């Protein structure tokens, strides 16, 4: 009995293998026609004659950065919805998006990246979360694929890797903006910095913030919390005991909600400051609930491109699943906008490279270096010698507790 069940199980697994891995030729000749069963997520088979440009969306859907990853993906998917085709070298191409969940994990990330590469994508977008991007960058480089980081702000993503680019600003810049905000605008002498132990993003941004804040004459007290911490009340007490004028907490949005809640309970009036990751409906909710003053830097401030905002919201609200991925509200996060721009800049790159399907990866990379594209939402994108976008503006926004909404505070330039 048992043996038979076991054999059945094994057979089922083998059949799965067969289904997922059709005898694919080394070079896929007619992409749309024999696209693997596990693949065509978005496109209808109707216009099957058109060659395909496949964009690999390397984003977390689960794990610590799951929420952010989903929001960022929404921007790209929306862009694909708005502009599903592109003309490259005189040939119309259908653009298809391939998604893989990297689980916010540096362990599972590379395998997920390899999976994406093996699905025959032509360019990679992502990932939300610098650590996973760094961990997986070699996989893309080894495959000779260009990757464009959308919101991974850690400098090490592109450093020493000619295949990785990014469209967002970097942590040194963000840290400077936040530090001068803390010092000059909020007049804080002491900053309490709370970071997640062992997290590249958290440690990096804190590092740049500290550097700048100290050079402005302030004192920094930094503490780390281990992952999975639920109880932040002790840390909030610490901040108050330390006499901090500002709490800087560059963490994931998940931790942010708990930190804000603890701050609210502790009854502190110290403003909380954070980077791009806090630009999330979760943070907004928590801040409104607990009445704490929260300020964040972001890539894009809602209202910057009103007509795009409206179109996106309409699209978002049309599908409850999409709305759920945005955290249940139609507030636009900065990285959603970046996801949109990254898609658009990708099409621009392929157009400038000018080689139609099956594309020339070297030409694509060359074209990427020469990008000068005005992103429809977040502005001009040009890459410097590291492959980082030259960005000189960060938006600062704050939570308006009464109205329960983000409020534009300032556009910081350096």
């Amino acid at each position, binding site marked *: 009995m048992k043996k038979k069940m076991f054999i059945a199980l094994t057979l089922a697994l083998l059949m*799965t293998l067969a289904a997922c891995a059709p005898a694919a030729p*080394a070079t896929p000749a007619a992409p749309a026609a024999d696209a693997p069963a596990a693949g065509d997520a978005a496109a209808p088979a109707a216009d099957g004659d058109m060659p395909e440009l496949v964009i690999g969306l390397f984003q977390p859907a689960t794990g610590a950065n799951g929420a952010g990853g989903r929001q960022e993906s929404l921007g790209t998917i929306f862009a694909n919805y708005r502009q599903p085709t592109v003309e490259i070298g005189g040939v119309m191409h259908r653009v298809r998006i391939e998604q893989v969940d990297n689980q916010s994990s*540096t362990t599972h990330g*590379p*395998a997920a990246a390899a*999976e994406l590469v093996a699905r025959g994508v032509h360019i990679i977008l992502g990932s939300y979360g610098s650590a996973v991007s760094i961990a997986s960058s070699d996989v893309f480089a080894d495959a000779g694929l260009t990757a464009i980081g959308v919101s991974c702000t850690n400098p090490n993503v592109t450093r020493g890797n000619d295949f990785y680019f990014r469209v967002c600003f970097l942590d040194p810049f963000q840290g400077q903006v936040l530090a001068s905000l803390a010092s000059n605008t909020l007049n804080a002498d002491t900053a309490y910095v709370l970071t997640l132990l062992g997290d*590249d993003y958290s440690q990096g941004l804190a590092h740049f913030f500290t550097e700048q804040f100290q050079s402005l004459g302030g004192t920094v007290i930094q503490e780390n919390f281990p992952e999975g911490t639920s109880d932040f009340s002790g840390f909030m007490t610490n901040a108050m005991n330390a006499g901090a004028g500002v709490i800087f907490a560059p963490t994931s949005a998940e931790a942010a909600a708990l930190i804000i809640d603890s701050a609210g309970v502790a009854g502190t009036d110290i403003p909380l400051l954070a980077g791009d990751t806090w630009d999330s409906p979760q943070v907004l909710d928590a801040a409104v609930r607990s009445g704490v003053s929260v300020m964040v830097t972001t890539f894009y401030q809602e209202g910057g491109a009103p007509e795009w905002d409206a179109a996106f919201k309409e699209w978002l609200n049309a599908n409850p699943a999409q709305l759920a991925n945005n955290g249940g509200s139609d507030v636009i996060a900065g990285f959603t906008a970046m996801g949109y721009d990254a898609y658009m800049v990708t099409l621009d790159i392929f157009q400038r490279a000018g080689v139609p399907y099956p594309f020339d990866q070297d030409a694509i990379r060359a074209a990427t270096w020469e990008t000068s594209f005005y992103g429809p939402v977040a502005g001009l994108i040009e890459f410097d010698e590291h492959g980082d976008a030259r960005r000189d503006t960060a938006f600062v926004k704050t939570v308006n507790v009464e109205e329960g909404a983000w409020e534009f505070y300032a556009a910081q330039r350096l």
Partner: protein
Amino acid sequence: MKKLSVGNSISILVLIIFFVLTIVLEQFIAPTDRMNMLLVCLRQGSIFALLAVAMNLLNGFTGLFSLGHAGFMLIGATTYALFSMPLAERSIVFTWFSDSYVIRISFPEVLGNLLGGPGMIIGMLISIILAGLVTAAFAFLVGLPVLRMRSDYLAIATLGFAEIIRAIIMWQGLGPVTNAGNPLRSFTRTADLNVTIGGQTFGLITFTLAFLSAVCIFIIFLLVTSSYGRAFKAIREDEIAAEAMGINLFKHKQLSFCISSFFVGVGGALLAIFMGTVAPLQFRAAMTYEFLLIVVLGGIGSITGSIVGAMLFVFASMWWLRGLDSGTFLGLDRITIFGVNLGERVFVSGFRMVVFSVIIMCIVLFFRRGLCGDKELPYYVNKLRELIARKSKPKPEAGGADA
């Protein structure tokens, strides 16, 4: 030398074919091929196999229910990364500890400069072995208090030690040594394992990782079939009787613990090569549980089982069942039941792991002996031959599989 039995020689043949295949396949499959997942899974699968076998040595063969796997893997991976990272990369990796990093030697780099390509490989090997040794040394210290405890307390104490190890490695005060939990990267990469002859590069990544794992597994196999292996099994079967037969419990437990940890360290180092990044945050208890479930899947006390279990685990979770997450699975996603489209609503992120854990629960509950029980490959080869022999006879027996 004794003459090899047919079962053994066929098993060896199977292994040789496997290794030749890894080499041949890698030359023909480009990273952008769909089938490249086969190679990626083989790489990760071999490393997982080693890690599972090492755990089996402890949990299955010696009967010590230890849950410190993730912690020891972390030590191995960290040690490897620290001793193989090129010096030039360190100031970038240790950014937050601006140039105050302590370990300033990279074996692959030193030997690579001295001897060229082969030197680099030797350097990597040295780092790998060092990773194993450091892990074993830590295991020795952990073993001192822990191995005197009763079975379930041992489990929880080793689990605790894994967390303590992680906390220490992530301690800010040790930052200049360990980078305080910030991911280590830019050490040797898998591509370094490729060999270039006359401008032509031969992909050997899969082969090298599989081969190194296989060598380690083979050593463990030799160990468990040796006199010491029998002593370990005696301890598993009955501690009091084992002691009465003159087996020093503590010494043998400590031996098994350290040897197992040595290979866990080596496995951690290989995993570091495979992943390219060592992030201590990932080495949590959940990781230990995964390996435990692999061992159970394959059969506690079977090396073959652990290998098969690891391969199945990796292939299924990384490849075959991924469709369950992304909304396309065997065409089932087009089915709509009660107005719910399976593809849109059921096959979403996380479903794969649910299916997976249900399968594992079924094995734990209904196939307690796992896939292979405590039998090894030659046994199955012999069984298969018997079966074929019976089939080829003029009057085949019906229902022979139930024998």
